[in-house]
């Protein structure tokens, strides 16, 4: 029995290959994701360990909570306050301290001397740091250490990427504004050129203190232990002497903190990729289901013969499942290999979207192989369960019957019931996830969507025939090939529908994402129109914060009537990490409508906080409440609610004054500046004046409302493109499925094709018939996807209406284009099968059993 199953399998290598392809791609994605993220995790572990090896104990200001990712000021710094310089003497006096090396850091962005563009800013931080002559980690590759004002050392990675050389003059933008420096040296982290893409500008300690507003203060002190003193022992000794608010930690703790923070971010990234991999595998299971359905139908006589010869139903089922397991295992193993390639590809893809990842050797863990193979085999097995059961129902007597046409109409009633029930349950779960306020909304939405897809897939054979009838109508005018294409697409609705359903999933998600991004853009535009009163906005290309000097310069312009700068920072409230925006209470209302519901904007000047009406309602906050907010630098702070505002898109849910912000955060950087022109100044003159004033800040964009909107739209589009690319794999798998189905159908229709050729059908006509069949299947799948995607998109928009997605926009053009593209993709999928059909030897086809 087993031998029969395996022999049947290997007899049809092409079939095996095509079936496996869908699983290979999905498993490859899973394996690729693990390989990529593991590789990154190791690279960063090594990096942090290397940095930690530089010293034994680190002395720094205590922080109320650890801020992950970018610093509380959003500028690549830790968000901790500086410590007084006197601490250095205290530390040096501790017994067992061999050396204590102070350092300061802040925001410093280099300007490429050739292009005049600011370097970095999107993704990795741009860090300014004092040069530590005692460091064994960050060492000079070329030139010498910075020794005074006007000198800078840059990291080797940035130097290489932007062709910076020793002796060259560069502009560096810091909090204090742009200044010119001479590059006196180039440094690297041992073998590594830079810190995961972060740009480093290194200054002599005193220069750095002045640049970063740290005169008389340090950010950190690195302490080396004397011979025979352990790091933990030393830490305890130092801690005992430190003033309140300053802490000593071992460098291994710091490395672990950094690694944890990074791994948390990496975890999100991994989950996101695995979601897309899961979608691919889900689509792959449709292909498996369809392929196994077709081949068991084609093998009816063979299976019946086995039954006639005494095989039990269980054995027949088992033989089909065995085939599935072998295909699944083989495909998964190939998939893992492909995953390593995909990991390399993904790294390049993310690079193309501006997310640079460190380059080290790819890392393949046993867990990656185990999970990938298990998932791939399981998906294949699940996909083949129904076909295997159907195979077992073949009666032995079928062996004696003539091969007849596939049954087409059977079980439609049951299908209608099951499909409707499945779809209803799926939608219910989805909607509950969206509107039920459950804690695991994402999981519910995902499960609901998957069930809905299965339900629609179960229902789709009912509409496949009428759909093909309508879609194929125009083809009838194209003569016999068009008509045959249509008839063939209609002859087995179950097969057509199952093939189309795989494409449906991809198209539904693409249309849903298109609708969401269009709605996001529309909502943003609407919000800006309501809120924004400013004539011009000043931002960096990636909302990287910039120096307050910019606002000062603009304020000094006679063409400008009002300037409002915005700063942002993280804080913690009742366990949640939240974002606060700081504004100037005297100018904010001239550039933006805050739509105050209660209280007043003026209360900001008394050190109060404004909370958005929505956030207040969710948390049961009302006007005049005294809230305790915890800030990374200063710890818990009591703040009184001075007002509730309705506008939360521009300023967010939490607003304080600039003065309050200065008290709470160590770093003063603006995220954006809004301004209003003086009476009688033309928009053009205003723009020109502002651009001139900030000309030496090359990272800044000065834009009017329309340009600002467009830039925002650009971000949304970039995200949309990234997601679409990731969903493309699901579409590709579906196309493999179309090719697979057509290939198997053509095999089945060998004699028919031979007859057509004998009575005078040309190869070209035959190819065209196969193509039209593929187009009908593809467009049918795309339309199903469109309908489901529209439903999902509208539901999501409604669910997120309160979160800044108030407007529903349906990008009709883009949706139509995606259906047309699906049709064209069908043509591509048909190339192989069409060629195979055209190449069939007429005589052999006629004689084909």
């Amino acid at each position, binding site marked *: 029995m087993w031998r029969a199953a395996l022999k049947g399998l290997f007899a049809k290598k092409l079939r095996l290959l095509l079936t496996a392809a869908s699983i290979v791609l999905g498993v490859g994605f899973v394996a690729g994701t693990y390989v990529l993220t593991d590789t990154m995790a190791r690279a960063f572990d090594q990096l942090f360990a290397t940095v930690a090896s530089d010293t034994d104990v680190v002395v720094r200001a205590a922080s109320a909570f650890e801020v992950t990712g970018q610093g509380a000021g959003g500028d690549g710094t830790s968000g901790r306050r500086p410590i007084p310089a006197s601490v250095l003497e205290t530390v040096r006096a501790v017994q067992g301290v061999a050396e204590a090396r102070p350092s300061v850091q802040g925001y410093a962005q280099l300007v490429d001397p050739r292009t005049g563009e600011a370097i970095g800013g999107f993704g990795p931080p741009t860090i300014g740091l004092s040069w530590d002559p005692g460091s064994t980690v960050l060492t000079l590759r070329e030139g010498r250490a910075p020794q005074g004002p006007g000198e800078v050392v840059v990291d080797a990675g940035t130097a290489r990427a932007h062709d910076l050389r020793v002796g060259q003059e560069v502009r560096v933008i810091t909090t204090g504004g742009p200044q010119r420096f001479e590059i006196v040296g180039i440094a690297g982290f041992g073998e590594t050129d830079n810190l995961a893409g972060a740009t480093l500008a290194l200054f002599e300690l005193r220069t750095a203190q002045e640049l970063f507003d740290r005169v008389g203060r340090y950010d950190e002190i690195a302490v080396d232990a004397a011979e025979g003193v352990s790091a933990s022992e030393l830490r305890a000794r130092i801690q005992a002497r430190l003033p309140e608010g300053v802490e000593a930690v071992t460098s291994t703790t710091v490395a672990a903190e950094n690694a944890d923070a990074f791994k948390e971010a990496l975890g999100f990234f991994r989950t996101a990729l695995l979601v897309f991999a899961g979608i691919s595998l889900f689509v792959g299971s449709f292909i498996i289901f369809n392929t196994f359905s077709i081949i068991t139908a084609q093998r009816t006589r063979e299976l019946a013969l086995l039954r006639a010869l005494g095989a039990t139903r269980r054995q027949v089922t088992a033989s089909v499942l065995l085939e599935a397991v072998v295909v699944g295992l083989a495909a998964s193993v190939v998939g893992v290999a492909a995953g390593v390639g995909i990991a390399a590809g993904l790294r390049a893809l993310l690079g193309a979207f501006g997310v640079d990842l460190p380059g080290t050797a790819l890392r393949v863990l046993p867990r990656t192989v185990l999970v990938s193979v298990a998932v791939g085999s399981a998906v294949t097995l699940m996909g083949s369960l129904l076909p295997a059961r159907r195979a077992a129902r073949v009666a032995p007597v079928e062996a004696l019957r003539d091969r007849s046409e596939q049954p087409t109409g059977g079980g439609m009633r049951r299908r209608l019931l099951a499909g409707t029930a499945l779809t209803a349950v799926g939608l219910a779960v989805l909607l509950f996830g969206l509107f039920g306020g459950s804690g695991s909304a994402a999981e519910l939405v995902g499960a609901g969507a998957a069930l809905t897809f299965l339900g629609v897939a179960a229902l789709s054979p009912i509409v496949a025939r009428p759909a093909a009838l309508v879609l194929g109508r125009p083809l009838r005018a194209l003569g016999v090939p068009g008509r*045959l294409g249509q*008839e063939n697409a209609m002859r087995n609705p179950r097969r057509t529908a199952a093939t189309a359903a795989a494409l449906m999933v991809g198209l539904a998600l693409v249309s849903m994402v298109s609708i969401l991004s269009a709605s996001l853009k529309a909502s943003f535009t609407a919000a800006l129109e309501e809120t924004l009163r400013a004539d011009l906005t000043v931002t960096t290309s990636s909302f990287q914060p910039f120096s307050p000097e910019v606002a000062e310069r603009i304020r000094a312009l006679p063409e400008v009537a009002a300037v409002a700068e915005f700063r942002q920072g993280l804080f913690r409230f009742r366990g949640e990490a939240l974002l606060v925006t700081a504004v100037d209470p005297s100018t904010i209302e001239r550039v933006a409508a805050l739509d105050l519901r209660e209280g007043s904007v003026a209360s900001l000047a008394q050190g109060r906080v404004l909370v958005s009406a929505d956030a207040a309602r969710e948390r049961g906050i009302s006007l005049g409440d005294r809230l305790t907010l915890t800030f990374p630098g200063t710890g818990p702070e009591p703040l009184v609610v001075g007002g509730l505002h309705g506008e939360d898109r521009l300023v967010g849910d939490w607003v304080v004054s600039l003065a309050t912000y200065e008290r709470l955060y160590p770093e003063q950087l603006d995220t954006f500046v809004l301004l209003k022109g003086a009476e009688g100044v033309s928009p053009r003159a205003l723009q020109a004046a502002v651009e001139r004033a900030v000309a030496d800040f090359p990272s800044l964009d000065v834009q009017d409302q329309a340009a600002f909107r467009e830039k925002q739209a650009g971000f949304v589009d970039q995200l949309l493109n990234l997601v679409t690319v990731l969903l493309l794999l699901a579409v590709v798998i579906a196309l493999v499925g179309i090719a697979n189905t057509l290939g198997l159908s053509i095999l089945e229709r060998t004699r*028919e094709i031979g*007859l057509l050729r004998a*009575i005078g059908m040309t*190869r070209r006509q035959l190819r065209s018939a196969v193509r039209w069949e593929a187009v009908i299947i593809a467009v049918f799948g795309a339309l199903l996807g469109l309908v489901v995607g529209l439903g999902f998109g509208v539901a999501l928009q409604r669910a997120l209406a309160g979160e800044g997605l108030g407007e529903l926009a349906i990008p009709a053009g883009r949706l139509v284009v995606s259906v047309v593209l699906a049709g064209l993709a069908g043509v591509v999928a048909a190339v192989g099968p069409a060629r195979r059909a055209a190449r069939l030897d007429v005589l052999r086809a*006629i004689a084909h059993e």
Partner: protein
Amino acid sequence: MGAVDASGGVAARAEELTKVYGEGHAAVRALDGVTVAFERARFTAIMGPSGSGKSTLLHCLAGLDTPTSGRVFLGDVDLTELSERQLTLLRREKVGFVFQAFNLIPTLSAAENITLPLDIAGRRVDRAWFDAVVDTVGLRDRLSHRPAELSGGEQQRVAGARALVARPEIVYADEPTGNLDSRSGAELLAFLRSAVDEHGQTIVMVTHDPVAASHADRIVFLADGRVVDEMREPTTERVLDRLKALEA
């Protein structure tokens, strides 16, 4: 005989036709220098034991198979000089086919199957002729049915109607009654006979059934890839005797 003048000359012929399958020791000589002509407006049967090469001869005559050497003519056209595409066009313009089984496209109705060669060629259907053919085969009330809804005999009659509707120069039939019961077979043969007698159609039929062959005007006997004999005005008994002699 019929109303149509039988002196129409030769519709198709083969000259020194040889077909070898395989190479070297494994080579099989399916046709070995066959020279034969088929008169216009006549019904010719090709008979012979299994492996005599009768099907190969039919395939070569119809442009479905390419001979190893020798020449094949349909009218004045030398098929061996035509490209694959030209052969395809020739088949659809000038040749009608009736195969033993699987003659119809399952997705098309009987009427659509009958006009298929014309539709493939993009030619207009001659309604009067279509009606005449359909009435001759007696399928008027079955035209909208799909092949699966027709009996075996009906299916073969549809195939016969299809072969005639494009008014081909010649109809090749490969064991057309092989899968039919004797009554259905007789009906189909009567239909083919009437096509020759009433419309001057040329038909060449391969068969191993002496009863079927006896409907023909002439029988060509093949053995071991050669023409070994022929018979005019055959009867079932004479054919049986001749076959016995051939196999002896």
